[in-house]
């Protein structure tokens, strides 16, 4: 049954994980996402659906538990925040290399180092450009609302199994901590399918199943890489997601922003439009694959683009790649846990894009 509720982002994520028919969650507490495991522990998923929840001794252990369980063909997820996600990188690389499905949510906080527990978007590079070692990609979804967080948990599992690839939900301390109205989707059944590729005990008459990312022969390892690259091209063809505001109207300028930052940017855009500035907002929902083509198409008709992020300009590089010199690209960002205000963004529109003094 669908349900309308007022929920905190992290708790909604946890409830969505149960409802998505997850088989297991492995995690380790860290602010600002500890509510995920707290909610799971308090809401008896094992009694409700048979979902296993385990607090591991570290993020290194959690991601390797995810690896083991994902190799059994189960729906498995973990969540953490920046320092914890850094610790998981080796495991994520193994999961990508062994081509296993799983969902990892990063409720980003400011860095580097122990940084701050306040929200940030400074793990963009880590999420979309690799993170761990080797040539691999994480399908990366960036929700801007608690509702999208919930919907993306379900979508993330669908994509993870469709492509047998880890999927990252890149959210932040704002969305994780704020309360919003959400419509929760109906309880999905847990998987009953026995996948050929999964470890489940050798099936008589069939080859034994091996989950590994190791190929000692370079020729073989190159083949693995070519297979991965072919898969990523498919992902890039099929899974680009974004929303636009006023971008199909006559506009001179456009803001590009993702996640919670896009909501603040939207306020700034509305204010700018009230003041007669012809401006729209482009919000990528998938950060990998990135909507390069859509932004490139827009760029030709624009006098300028302002990228707004809660970091020192990471997605900015992808916006520039997309624009490819067709128009000027400016940047406004706050970092270290600071959140830009709509007024600051409005000011950046005027000074950086329009060139007012």
């Amino acid at each position, binding site marked *: 049954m669908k349900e309308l509720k007022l929920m905190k982002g992290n708790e909604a994520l946890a409830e969505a994980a149960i409802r998505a028919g997850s088989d297991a969650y492995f995690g380790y507490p860290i602010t600002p996402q500890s509510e995920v495991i707290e909610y799971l522990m308090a809401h008896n998923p094992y009694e409700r659906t048979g979902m296993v929840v385990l607090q591991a001794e570290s993020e290194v252990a959690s991601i390797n538990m995810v690896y*083991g*369980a994902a190799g059994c063909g189960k729906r498995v997820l973990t969540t953490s925040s920046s320092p914890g996600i850094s610790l998981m990188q080796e495991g994520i690389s193994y999961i990508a290399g062994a081509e296993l499905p799983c969902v990892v949510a990063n409720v980003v906080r400011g860095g580097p180092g122990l940084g701050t527990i306040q929200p940030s978007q400074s793990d963009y590079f880590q999420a979309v450009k690799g993170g761990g070692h080797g040539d691999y990609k994480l399908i990366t979804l960036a929700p801007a609302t608690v509702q999208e967080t919930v919907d993306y948990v379900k979508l993330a599992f669908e994509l993870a199994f469709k492509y047998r690839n880890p999927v990252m939900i890149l959210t932040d301390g704002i969305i994780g901590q704020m309360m919003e109205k959400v419509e929760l989707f109906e309880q999905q059944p847990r998987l009953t399918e026995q996948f050929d590729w999964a*470890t489940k005990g050798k099936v008589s008459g069939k080859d034994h199943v091996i989950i590994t990312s190791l190929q000692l022969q370079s020729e073989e390892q190159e083949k693995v890489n070519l297979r991965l690259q072919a898969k990523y091209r498919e992902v890039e063809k099929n899974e680009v997601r974004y929303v636009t505001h006023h971008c199909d109207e006559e506009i001179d300028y456009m803001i590009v922003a993702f996640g919670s930052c896009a909501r603040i940017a939207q306020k700034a855009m509305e204010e700018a439009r009230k003041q007669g500035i012809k401006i729209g907002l482009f919000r990528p929902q998938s950060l990998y694959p990135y909507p390069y083509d859509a932004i490139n198409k827009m760029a030709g008709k624009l006098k300028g683009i302002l990228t707004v992020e809660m970091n020192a300009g990471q997605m900015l590089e992808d916006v520039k790649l997309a624009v490819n010199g067709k128009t000027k690209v400016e940047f406004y960002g706050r970092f270290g846990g600071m959140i830009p205000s709509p007024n600051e963004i409005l000011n950046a529109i005027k000074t950086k894009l329009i060139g007012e003094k």
Partner: protein
Amino acid sequence: MSELIKPENLVYQKSKVLTDKVMHYCPGCGHGAAHKMLAEAIDELGIQNETIGVAPVGCSVLAYYYFDLDMTEAAHGRATAVATGIKRVMPDKYVFTYQGDGDLAAIGTGETIHTCNRGENILIVFINNGIYGMTGGQMAPTTLEGMKSSTSPFGRDIKTMGNPLKLTEIVAQLKGTYYVTRQSVHTPGNARRTKRVLKKALEYQKLNKGTCFVEIVSNCPSNWKMSPVEANKWMEENMFPFYPLGDIKVPEQ
């Protein structure tokens, strides 16, 4: 000859839990015998189709080619976490890890202790050869005092390099472990005892009473720079006094 090759004359057969792949282990290395004992234990219990194994990073990284079992290859040191993930979603399967001393007692110490402390119902097979075999004979946490390795070329100096670690004795103290023992596979008698021990440990898994931990004190002729015979003699004279064979924790009757 041909009249001799008859089923009724069969005295020994390779376990069907081992594949036909030629093992890459050096001559005289204990890994081969340890694999064989584990495979035979699984075979004799008739649980080949219900067993999932986890291979480590180390010389036995390719164990998944040799066991005809569904297997996962874990990152260096993380085998027991991987096995935890498997066992938690497949509680009816027999799950084991097979790990070297670098894997289990250095980089994976945290996972080893916490897995044992949670009492995960898995079997941990721990191959202690006192050295890092795969990477060319560097010092392991288990390297004996004074023992030479490529990173302790003048012998392990306790003052600067720390003491050899007896992780098996440590996990035996944890409530989560059910059965903890130390064996070897360097003689037919020891190998047979190890097989009995492995069978018992796998049978215990059905009871859901906690972690079974089987250390096998082994050798590394290549990196000890000895012949197989010398290596086994050296192991008896030097490894066994420090790592004595026998049960360390047995189930309470």
